């Protein structure tokens, strides 16, 4: 496309002199926006401007920044690589999986080779297969995700060696830990390579103007191959460094998706064009920093994820519109042969007149740019106003400040379903002895899962901060929640109600199911120096270093909801949440009784990368092995909790197994339940027993209508409340139990009414 402008070259050369301000603004838009945001947040938002927070932002940007190097290269070549996110996860998984065998050096090198290999395949298919890179990389993205899940068996991986992780995090120079230094060096190195060396410049020619590249004797194929391999290599490196920094890798595919989207947005904001020939690694880096700062700052203000993603969208839209507008203007003056015109004009008409015509378009662009900047300023101003006017009156809520505190009993609080949030804890779970080597036992035996099921029961905690012992009133707690889901909306409700009852101040950060984001938010929470952090992990295994980081900073921490792995339990005061394994053992017995302890059943599993993926599959399998050995497991698989996928899966099972299949265990009672019921309705089977994890409105409706036999009762509001309750107990100076479960109950048609209306 750039060749179309060659005829305008003299003018644009002249323009460069007269409108340098505008050019400057356009060229450095990422950096300028970044500075603007940074200054704005520093002025308006407390806790934002601190050395720790700046390091947090720089550290948090490193994964996306390294990926964006290769991605910019691909953009310069006019191609697209959708597989980067998946490659990040696969190579991270490889480096963690091989580390115990081979050590860090070799495993990271192998991770890099994995990335390069995928890049090589992408390149070959684009160059030799002559397939559009969008299609090729869409395909490899799906394949690589599958390979990653196969390799990790749908779970996460971790190593218990934190030396490398600690080294990567400790600042070598002020503000700059090695992970940031490495990123900076890579970014600068690649910028210099691309912008200053002949080989680097050749990428721009190949991408921007293939014909002149051909005429110049540059082999397009070779550069494309180099580009794809380079992109795979940087994605692999980013994955390996990310995994090393956390000593673990999650297998929840959200990370891949979010990385791809963030990097794509950043590269566009950094000025790269999808049609190729334009882009700068350094500017992409500034844009990544811009996005990280945006998320960090909005989190500091205390606004929700919806605002972050909204502003992210608006920013991208503005940039896309601006690019389109520039292109539109160029198209308009395309055929005008202004160079020729100018030559004839030179003598007779003064330059000013000619410039006047040209400057109109430039003025338009300048106005647009101003509008964009005003928009950003407005957004920052809105935050400031929000902070000043909205945040302070919140305290008015706790009006009756009298002697209520002594009378208040947490057991009296009830959720929207009329159930009490918490019950006075009486039952003590009897924990069986740990088998000598759990992993040596087959998966169908209870002992195999001991480390996950009874995580934290016999663990030696590291030194914990001691309780101030002055009660919960006025304490500040930060909740790091895993992500957004109606369950979590109810959770936050219970959490807030309970915290208000105890007169605690709360702040909530939303990890959006993304391990990378939660790692950044952990640092952000530490920066706030709260009295307590309540941590709901995105990933049960990969959260270990994060909990460790919080405890090392001297902040007490309670884990909530997802049960972390045994190792992670060392680094928190306690864990509260639903007893997923226990619930499903209860449910399995109910299920077996209804089936007469015989017949075949199948399991629709949870999402890979989540802890229920194992709990809600192997709790029923192991329980039924003991309780009803005649029952036969016919099939199990995941449909990612989607209704259509579940429908397809269950329909196929119903056709394949026919009357053999008599029962279904579902890992969720929402979309999974809907899909299953649809499949059963169209097969016209009436005899299938269904049990599921609960309890959403969909599931309760199904139980009430008699479509499903039973679901578990898991109070979302109670889940949030019990964490706050436990925190309050600690502030009072009480010793905490290691593990505190929510009350276990099974909902059947007989008692479903007492749990209505549903919490979510």
């Amino acid at each position, binding site marked *: 496309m750039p060749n179309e402008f060659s005829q305008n070259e003299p003018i644009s050369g002249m323009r460069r002199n007269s409108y340098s301000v505008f050019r400057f603004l356009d060229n450095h838009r990422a950096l300028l926006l970044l500075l603007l945001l940074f200054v704005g947040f520093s002025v308006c938002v407390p806790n934002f401007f601190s050395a720790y927070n700046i390091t947090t932002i720089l550290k948090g940007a490193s994964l996306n920044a390294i990926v964006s190097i290769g991605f910019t290269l691909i953009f310069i070549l006019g191609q697209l690589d959708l597989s980067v996110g998946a490659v990040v996860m696969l190579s991270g998984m490889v480096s963690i999986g091989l580390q115990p065998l081979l050590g860090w050096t070799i495993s990271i090198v192998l991770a890099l080779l994995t990335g390069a290999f995928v890049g090589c395949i992408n390149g070959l298919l684009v160059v030799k*297969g*002559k*397939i*559009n890179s969008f299609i090729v990389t*869409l*395909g*490899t*993205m*799906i*394949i690589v995700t*599958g390979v990653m*899940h196969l390799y990790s068996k749908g779970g996460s991986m971790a190593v218990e060696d934190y030396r490398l992780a600690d080294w990567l995090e400790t600042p070598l120079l002020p503000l700059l830990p090695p992970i940031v230094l490495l990123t900076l060096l890579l970014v600068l190195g690649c910028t210099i390579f691309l912008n200053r060396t002949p080989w680097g410049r050749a990428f721009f020619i190949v991408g921007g103007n*293939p*014909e002149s590249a051909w005429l110049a004797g540059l082999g397009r194929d070779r550069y494309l191959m180099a580009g794809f391999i380079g992109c795979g290599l940087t994605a692999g490196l980013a994955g390996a460094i990310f995994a090393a920094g956390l000593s673990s890798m999650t297998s929840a595919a959200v990370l891949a998706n979010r990385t791809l989207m963030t990097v*794509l*947005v950043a590269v*566009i904001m950094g000025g790269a064009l*999808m*049609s*190729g020939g334009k882009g700068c690694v350094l500017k992409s880096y500034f844009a990544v920093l811009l996005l990280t700062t945006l998320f960090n700052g909005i989190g500091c203000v205390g606004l*929700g*994820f*919806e605002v972050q*993603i*909204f*502003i*992210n*969208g*608006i920013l*991208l*839209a503005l940039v*896309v*519109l601006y690019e*389109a507008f520039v*292109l539109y203007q160029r198209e308009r003056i395309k055929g005008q042969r202004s160079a020729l015109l100018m030559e004839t004009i030179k003598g007779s008409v003064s330059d000013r007149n000619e410039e006047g015509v040209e400057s109109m378009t430039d003025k338009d662009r300048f106005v647009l740019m101003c509008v964009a900047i005003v928009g950003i300023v407005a957004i920052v101003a809105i935050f400031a106003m929000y902070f000043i006017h909205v945040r302070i009156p919140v305290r008015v809520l706790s009006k009756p400040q009298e002697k209520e505190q002594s009378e208040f009993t947490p057991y009296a609080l009830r959720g929207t379903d009329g159930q009490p949030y918490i019950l006075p804890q009486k039952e003590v779970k009897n924990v069986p002895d740990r088998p000598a080597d759990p992993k040596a036992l087959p998966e169908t035996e209870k002992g195999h899962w001991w480390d996950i099921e009874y995580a934290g029961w016999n663990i030696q905690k590291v030194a914990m901060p001691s309780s101030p012992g002055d009660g919960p009133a006025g304490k500040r707690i930060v909740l790091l929640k895993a992500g*957004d*889901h*109606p369950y979590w*909306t109810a959770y936050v409700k219970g959490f807030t109600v309970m915290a208000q009852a105890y007169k605690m101040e709360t702040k909530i950060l939303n990890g959006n199911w993304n391990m990378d984001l939660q790692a950044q938010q952990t640092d952000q929470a530490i920066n706030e120096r709260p009295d307590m952090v309540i941590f709901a992990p995105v990933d049960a295994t990969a959260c270990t270093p994060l909990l460790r980081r919080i405890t090392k900073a001297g902040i007490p921490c309670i884990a909530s909801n997802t049960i972390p792995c045994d190792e992670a339990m060392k680094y928190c005061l306690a864990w509260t949440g639903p007893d997923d394994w226990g619930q499903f053992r209860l449910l399995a017995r109910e299920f077996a009784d209804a089936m007469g302890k015989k017949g075949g059943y199948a399991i629709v599993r949870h999402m*890979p990368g989540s802890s229920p993926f194992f709990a809600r599959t192997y709790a029923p399998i192991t329980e039924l092995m003991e309780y009803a050995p005649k029952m036969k497991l016919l*099939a199990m698989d995941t449909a990612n909790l*989607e*209704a*259509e996928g579940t*429908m*397809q*899966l269950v*329909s*196929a*099972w119903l*056709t*394949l197994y026919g009357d053999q299949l008599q029962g279904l265990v579902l890992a969720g009672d929402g*979309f999974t339940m*809907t899909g299953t019921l*649809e499949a059963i309705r*169209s*097969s016209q089977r009436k005899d299938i027993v269904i049990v599921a994890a609960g309890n959403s*409105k*969909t599931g309760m*409706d199904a139980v009430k209508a008699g479509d499903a036999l039973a679901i578990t009762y898991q109070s979302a509001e109670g889940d949030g409340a019990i964490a706050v309750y436990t925190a309050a107990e600690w502030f009072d100076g009480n010793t905490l139990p290691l593990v505190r479960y929510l009350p276990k109950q099974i909902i059947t048609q007989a008692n479903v009414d007492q749990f209505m209306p549903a919490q979510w």
Partner: protein
Amino acid sequence: MIPAKKNHSAFVRTDLLDRVGIYLVGAVLVVIGDFVSDEFLTVTNLLSVLNAVALLGIVATGMAFVTYSGNMADLSMPSIMAFSGIICVSALPLGFTVALTAGILAGLLIGAMNGFIVGRFNANPILWTLAVTFFMEGFMRFAWSNNQVYPDIEPGTAGFKLIGLFRMSIGSVPLVVVVMVLLFIAGHFVIVHTRFGIESKLVGSSKPAARTTGIDVSRVILLDFLVAAFCASIAGIFLTSMNKLGVFYLGKGYDFKAVTAVVIGGMTLRGGRGTMPGVLGGVLVIGLLTNIMTFMGIGAFEQNIVTGGVFIAVVGLHQRQLCRRGKDYA
């Protein structure tokens, strides 16, 4: 992006293999399926395959128009699905018909915005629709405070009718399958026999050429995005009806799934080439593939690998064929 090889065989009529290629793949799959299980070639099973891909089919019909007119993909389709669904549920107190209309209008609104900006200002369609996805997600999270909205399910109410929509069937064929087939037929008719369809083809093949012929390019692109939004909102309402709730993340993943179906069906991403029956074939092949692999007991992870492989292989073969006939890159 890539210089097109100018060759006069571009005028050679698309041969038969190009048209039926994807159906050959489908036929191979049917033979394999029959070999794998006796239960495969039964009316029940084939209907369940159809039922499972019906929503994908509806979305793919819309996506095909965007791809055909050279705009690669509309990534905002999941947002449109979620938005029309959530609006439809929210408007239920006003009556069933009003709610349906409101849902579809809400989807069309986003489509109109996309079409206007991509068509008039020549914005990059992928990036623009990606931005729309972001701010629509933010907006829906904010407006409905991250919650699911449930329709009434008491018999006789508008909500009950909405929920019944997905569960309705004509004879033994589910309504959603009928709608999918009707949309495909309508789409085929529009593309082959109407002025708008032919203009879309020209716009997809070469925008400058279309402009010089006097076609109002921005109007054609606007209409293409409107068709896409219309299909997405219908799919969104069906999806809402199926799940009995509206929520901001409904429809996630349909963007790439639909592109996969459209491309595997022989439509090229550069626009202007491909047929509606091909896209239908692509949708069916995806459904059959998943069904057969589940029958064979292949897990979801391996299914991913096979699906990705088949996708690349089919598109690659199609591409080779195009190259051999001297046509450009797919």
